[in-house]
């Protein structure tokens, strides 16, 4: 078990989770949630990182929702597993976009943690002082 992750996300200790990749500096949570491992996605104000061209370049829930709608997602009530759908969870920390996670067919969730590892986890296991809480769930038909 990766103790360094439990120190950052203490709620991991209370639910099943596992590390699924080595640490990697080349992609982040939003890229991973959308199925990509080649770029670091973020609406940074300097415009150094990838963000869809016509989307708002702000670290807000609205900007993230806009990107997900363009990718075929629609809002849903919660993170319960629904056959035939792929869900994402968006986290806000003090009102600012902080993290994204993706549901996998087992019903568990997968996250890329900053420039650390990928893990499988329960959505609430990452809630806390690092990422805040889940503010939005969205889903799309599995391709």
């Amino acid at each position: 078990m990766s103790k360094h992750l439990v120190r950052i996300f203490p709620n991991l200790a209370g639910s099943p989770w596992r590390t699924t990749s080595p640490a990697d500096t080349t992609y982040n949570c939003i890229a991973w949630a959308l199925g990509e491992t080649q770029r670091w996605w973020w609406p940074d104000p300097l415009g150094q990182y990838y963000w869809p061209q016509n989307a708002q370049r702000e670290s807000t829930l609205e900007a993230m929702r806009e990107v997900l709608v363009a990718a075929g997602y629609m809002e849903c009530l919660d993170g319960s597993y629904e056959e035939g759908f792929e869900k994402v969870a968006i986290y806000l920390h003090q009102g600012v976009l902080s993290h994204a996670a993706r549901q996998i067919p087992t019903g568990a969730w997968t996250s890329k943690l900053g420039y650390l590892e990928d893990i499988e986890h329960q959505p609430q296991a990452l809630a806390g002082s690092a990422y805040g809480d889940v503010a939005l769930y969205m889903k799309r038909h599995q391709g």
Partner: protein
Amino acid sequence: MPNLAEETQTDRLQIGTSAWFKGESDTRVIWEGYIVDPIRKRFQADWGNLAPQSLSSTEEQPPSDFVKLTEEWKRDTSHVSSPVGIAMHPSYQRIIGMGEAALSSIFSELQREPHHWFWALAAITGVNPVSPEDRGNMRMMSAAWLKWARENGWTE
């Protein structure tokens, strides 16, 4: 008599520490306050005393302050996805405050591994050699900066 340079540095770091945990709209404003000359000049002066030859070769050991600040920065931001949150860390801001004296060490780090040095490099050099189609591609961004470093005499 109070030491004005010390007070200025301390104030900035305190602002930075609180800003790092606040919203990005706030940190952006405070970020602009970080790059004022008094801090940069002070660190450039200290840096010069510690490592007067550090600009000439990437094979030299980076000064210990750079190593320490980099370790602190990576330790505290490894789980962070926002480049703003990553760059607002006080240790990262102190590296930016070193100015050009930090460039050789930053380029050595980039040669070893793609990492989030782009904000610091843009702040210190005032340029951005990354083409728009490579935004977010950490390997291509690193390659563009290393090419710029070679062309401008920072690395061989």
